[in-house]
């Protein structure tokens, strides 16, 4: 059965959301490495929401839902009501640049794409809904 947690999208909410998804990861028996990958994905997605989705002086809600379909697998959805933004269409960072030309940021979405088994975005009734699956199964 899916479990949900809704909080205000701000840095102070990260600990509670991380603890919430860790509970799901334990239910799914995810190995430690996958649990850390999951935490990283959650941090990157939430950081994008509090930085870019809502105005800095008016943070809005973020709803995180997870479900465990079978051992070793977990589905997660992160939803917000900020400006429409599909991270799947964001420009990929240029990883070939040397240090002097490397921008200091822009790597979060790349990491999320790399660790997610599947990653989907839809805009629905004013909500951005980013869902992904993490799996330790082959």
């Amino acid at each position, binding site marked *: 059965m899916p479990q949900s947690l809704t909080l205000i999208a701000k*840095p102070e909410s990260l600990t509670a959301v991380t603890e919430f998804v860790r509970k799901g990861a334990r239910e799914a028996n995810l190995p430690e*490495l996958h649990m*850390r990958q999951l*935490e*990283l994905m959650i*941090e990157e997605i939430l950081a994008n929401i509090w930085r870019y989705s809502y105005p800095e002086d008016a943070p809005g809600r973020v709803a995180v839902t997870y479900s465990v379909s079978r051992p070793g697998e977990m589905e997660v959805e992160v939803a917000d009501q900020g400006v429409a933004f599909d991270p799947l269409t964001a420009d990929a960072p240029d*990883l*070939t640049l040397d*240090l*002097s030309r490397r921008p200091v940021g822009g790597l979060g979405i790349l990491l999320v794409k790399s660790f997610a088994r599947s990653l989907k975005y839809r805009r629905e009734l004013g909500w951005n809904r980013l869902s992904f699956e993490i799996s330790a199964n082959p």
Partner: protein
Amino acid sequence: MTIDCTQMGGKVVLHVAGRMDAESAAHLEGQCDSCIAEGATSLVIDLGDLSYVSSMGLRSFVGIAKKLKNKGGELRICRLTGLVRQVFEITRLNQVFPMYESVESALLGG
């Protein structure tokens, strides 16, 4: 996250352990800034006991390395494991900084 700072072979070695998230990344950058202000031009960062790093942490490593390069030195990173190794490989930052398997080899450089 904890940072232990030691002098080895005339170089500063920072041993970073625990989790490096947005908040603690700034802490490491501050520590490195202090070392640079005290005259260090090259730093060795030992990540053997770091279990977690997000893109905010990576941002700090890139920032520190740029400052050291401007001083004519470099940032040497060693002992990557688990998620931290994956994150450096995915972002190809393992090809941007010199990476070493041990503190000793990082001190020798090359």
